[in-house]
């Protein structure tokens, strides 16, 4: 049983963070960054994040697990068909990876290989179903597995997405397909999170709220224009425009979100993008 699943089942407030594999083979900076994490339950390893080609998430996650860090392996449907997804999941299990975040994936258009052919042979609901099948010892062809993987599968959600009911019917499908936890997109809107959490209540699946450390107004505007599912409200951008110390403002906003999540959710997922040293301050 992974530490993440154990802590969530005990009702403990969990903290996850994330690391992106390098562009290249030098793992040292990523491993060093993870070594600096404090008070983290598990570390998400991103999968060609934002459709930018990087070293395999599975390879970095395997290294981290070997070094004693619990990981949440992110796996997207964008770059692999159903055979490759199953192979990678079995491989992940062989490396001791249990926690998964199963995603559709950002469209290739957003990344550094916009000419590539996006796969999307499965969607995230089908990927969850397939993972549930592997955990029962059968692959998508109905064939038995010699050695059955143990996973703790999670899924993603954007609680602020509109129309809400349309977004939420997919959340319900993901729960039916075996999602045991949710990690959310960056949260900026108290009302949207409250509405989402009250809809989640009957489903009884823990939610880990996404907290993004925004460094300045420019970054906020960039996110709004370039990152699918991230929408920083104008009111927050104005706070950055008014302050002399934008990083301190970003820290304050992240702390407010963590406080909000402590009241509503079962954990936070911190996205600090190179400012891992600020994690203790965000959690304080």
């Amino acid at each position, binding site marked *: 049983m992974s530490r993440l699943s154990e802590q969530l089942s005990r009702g403990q407030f969990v903290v996850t963070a994330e690391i992106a594999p390098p562009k290249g083979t030098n793992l040292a900076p990523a491993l060093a960054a993870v070594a600096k994490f404090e008070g983290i339950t598990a570390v998400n390893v991103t999968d060609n994040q934002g459709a930018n080609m990087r070293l395999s998430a599975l390879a970095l996650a395997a290294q981290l697990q070997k070094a004693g860090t619990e990981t949440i392996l992110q796996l997207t*449907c*964008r770059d692999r068909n*159903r055979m490759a997804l199953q192979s990678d999941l079995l491989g992940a299990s062989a490396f001791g990876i249990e926690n998964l975040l199963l*995603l*559709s*994936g*950002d*469209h290739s*258009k*957003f990344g550094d290989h916009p000419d590539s052919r*996006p796969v*999307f*042979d*499965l*969607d*995230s*609901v*089908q990927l969850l*179903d*397939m993972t549930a099948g592997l955990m029962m010892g059968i692959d*998508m062809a109905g064939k038995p597995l010699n050695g059955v993987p143990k996973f703790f599968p999670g899924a*993603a*959600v*954007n609680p602020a*997405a*509109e*129309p809400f*009911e*349309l*977004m939420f*019917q*997919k959340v319900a*499908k993901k729960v*039916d*397909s075996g999602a045991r936890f949710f990690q959310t*997109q960056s949260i900026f809107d108290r009302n949207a999170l409250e509405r989402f959490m009250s809809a989640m209540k009957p489903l009884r699946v823990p939610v880990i709220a996404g907290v993004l450390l925004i460094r300045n107004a420019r970054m906020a505007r960039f996110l709004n224009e370039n990152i*699918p*599912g991230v*929408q920083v409200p104008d009111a927050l951008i104005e706070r950055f425009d008014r302050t002399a110390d934008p990083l301190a403002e970003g820290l304050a906003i992240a702390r407010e979100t963590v406080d909000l999540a402590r009241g509503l959710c079962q954990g936070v997922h911190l996205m600090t993008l190179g400012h891992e040293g600020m994690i203790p301050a965000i959690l304080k």
Partner: protein
Amino acid sequence: MIISQLKPLDELQQALAEFDKLFLVGCAACATACKSGGEEEIFKLQEWLVTLEKDVTGSVVIDEACHIMRAARDLRHHKNAVQSAEAVMVLACGSGVQSISSNVDKRVVGGLNSMFLGNVRRFGHYEEMCSLCGDCILNETAGICPVTTCAKGLLNGPCGGMKDGHCEVDADIECAWRLIYERLQSQQRQGVFARRVPPKNWSRRRQPGRYQLNKGS
């Protein structure tokens, strides 16, 4: 119909560099309708080729260039002009080009890029609504195809990139799943939302497609 457009002229000029005498073929079906390979475009092509100092030995607009036997018949009617050319230049979709290339022993230069099976919104505005996947789900999705009109072809609802009901890939386009959801609601039925849709059977779209009316696929 098949939507196609003229290749960039510099690419065509390169493809034609080794030929001085050309026979031209257009198509009276899709390529005429979408203004890429009808009489008018063949005439414009001829004018352009003259500026490159190429000879045009003749031309024909075939009824349906994708009809292999009909293309053969129409080319036979222009046998001498075809024979005196060094290459045949075709303004038709990729299917049309291959009807021609399988019927002549000359080099064939395709002049168009084939883009998609398109619906016509209004003159000159084409939209892809069907990707010929061989496994149609339209009866459950209120007549809106997510395989084609969702940028990711998702089958169980919108992705996390939906923003105010619009697509993450193109903010001008409404999310296919939002449209499906709204139309199903107005029809007061659940449709595709009543179940988890299993992975698609892509073997029905095995490449290359083959189908015989009396034998099935």
